[in-house]
């Protein structure tokens, strides 16, 4: 990027990018950086922070910092997998509905409208009741439920592009569906889709953490941030900060992504977290 373009990036976006970079580092290297194992008991429950344990110990006497680092991979990984699934389903189907129109569009849109008329949390709880909670079930359930939102956005964006002259020209040239999607629509739909990826990641990340907090998400013995808040929650009643560390980790990542998305969307009228 040219120096001038860099200077026009607002400080809030820099903070956001720094937070995302930090979390990416924790996601990639967390378990390698952790000084202790995620299941290793190293002292008494709720020991306060000390030189050896910067964030203190958790409710079972395990090192909080190490568990946060291990948990990063789990919490961020599950959300990334779910968002990847929702985009790989929602984007092609949304674009297909926009190009083909008619029956394809009507059927897909009606299905999506119905799924979206139930709060995501309630739908997810119904599925978790039937299948029990495991990582594949979590990822597929959240990915499928969230793909409805991605579908809606890609459909609207693709409809707009499909009506442009250059898309019309390509159609008249006799280009096939693959060319239309790959060469005409996708490249032009990238900016809103990238911003949406950020927002959907935030939503999914908070959602996975929320389910884990309720005890219905990632199951022990794996460390994950939402579950860590739940496990350490009683500490707050004794004035301990223990549950606030994982909760703050969750908050910082979502704030980071929101700050960057806010900058990317500056000038567009999109409302954050519109469909949480």
């Amino acid at each position: 990027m040219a120096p001038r373009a860099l200077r026009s990036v607002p400080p809030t976006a820099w903070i956001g990018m720094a937070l995302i970079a930090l979390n990416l580092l924790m996601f990639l290297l967390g378990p390698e950086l952790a000084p202790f194992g995620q299941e290793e008991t190293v002292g008494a429950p709720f020991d306060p922070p000390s030189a050896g344990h910067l964030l203190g110990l958790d409710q079972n006497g395990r090192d909080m910092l190490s568990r946060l680092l291990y948990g990063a991979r789990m919490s961020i990984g599950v959300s990334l997998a779910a968002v990847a699934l929702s985009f790989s389903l929602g984007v092609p189907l949304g674009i297909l509905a926009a190009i083909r129109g008619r029956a394809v569009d009507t059927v897909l849109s009606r299905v999506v409208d119905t799924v979206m008329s139930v709060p995501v949390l309630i739908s997810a709880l119904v599925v978790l009741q039937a299948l029990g909670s495991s990582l594949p079930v979590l990822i597929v359930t959240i990915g499928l439920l969230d793909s409805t939102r991605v579908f809606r956005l890609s459909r609207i964006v693709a409809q707009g592009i499909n009506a442009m002259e250059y898309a019309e020209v390509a159609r008249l040239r006799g280009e096939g569906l693959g060319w239309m999607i790959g060469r005409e629509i996708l490249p032009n739909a990238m900016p809103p889709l990238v911003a949406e990826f950020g927002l959907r990641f935030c939503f999914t990340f908070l959602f996975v953490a929320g389910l884990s907090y309720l005890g219905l998400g990632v199951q022990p013995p794996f460390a994950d941030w939402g579950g860590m808040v739940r496990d350490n929650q009683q500490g707050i009643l004794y004035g301990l900060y223990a549950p606030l560390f994982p909760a703050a980790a969750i908050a910082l990542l979502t704030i980071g992504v929101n700050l960057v998305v806010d900058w990317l969307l500056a000038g567009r009228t999109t409302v954050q977290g519109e469909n949480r």
Partner: protein
Amino acid sequence: MSRLILGRLAWGLLTLWLVSVLVFAGTELLPGDVAAAILGQNATPESLAALREELGLNAPALQRYVAWLLGFLHGDLGESLANRTPVAELLWPRFGNTMALAAYAAVVAVPLAVTLGILSAVRRGSLFDRGANVIALATVSLPEYFLGLLLILLLSVRTGLLPSLANTYEGMGFLAWLQATTLPMIVLTLVTVAQIMRMTRTAVLGVMDQPFIEMAYLKGLRNGRVVLRHAVPNAAAPIVNVVAFNIAYLITGVVLVEAVFNYNGLGRFMVDAVSKRDLPMVQGAAMVFAAVYVLLNMTADIAAIALNPRLRHPRAKEA
């Protein structure tokens, strides 16, 4: 206009029916055997078969769905698998608690948020506007339990101003109830105010670009009067929409908040039922949550139609 409203009502009822199909399909057709779930480890093939027969699980899915839906319409939500109590008996009191908490939060949050949103639209670009925007962005990003734990630490553990757990019981006084539920109310207010405020601001500013607003300014009206008299009434429809949307959020978002404060509401009821894998309880709670959500969204759309000045005109055609 009445045709639009009737159409929306019909669509709402159709959605409710589709939702019942989804809930039933989601809980009954997915793999996982209810009889095996009840009997657990020590199930013999004979006892499993007997229980399936008793629960009517051998009937075809369609027949079970019709029976379930008819029961539901008559207020019979089935029996809890865990202790064979009618689900309705357990569910409605918890639903009442959740609605009470949501109402408490809505009464505080909605007027506050709409006022703040209009104020920041009036003073677009001011320090107040930018500050409100940053705070809104922050509270939208913060998980409910983070805010909840922080408030417990600050307002309860450190200062003892408010109780840390929302213990409510039947027959407690109104003031005692208010005190017990104030912390969860504050959390719910914080997470919804940001949303409503930002949307209100966007809606009002969207109207501010219209020619009739310029006309009002050219007449020599003051800024505040232009906003309150000319912009806000025309922005009412989107504002009502976002308010209803957020009240719908209050009713389901309450699930996490109830867990933080151990509040005896429908959210915790449903989470407990899911972890025990108690099918009828989950079906009941899911249907109630979904119905409230669908009804609120429908109300929002109807209110938006009724409030749209262009549609109110007798000569107005379809929107």
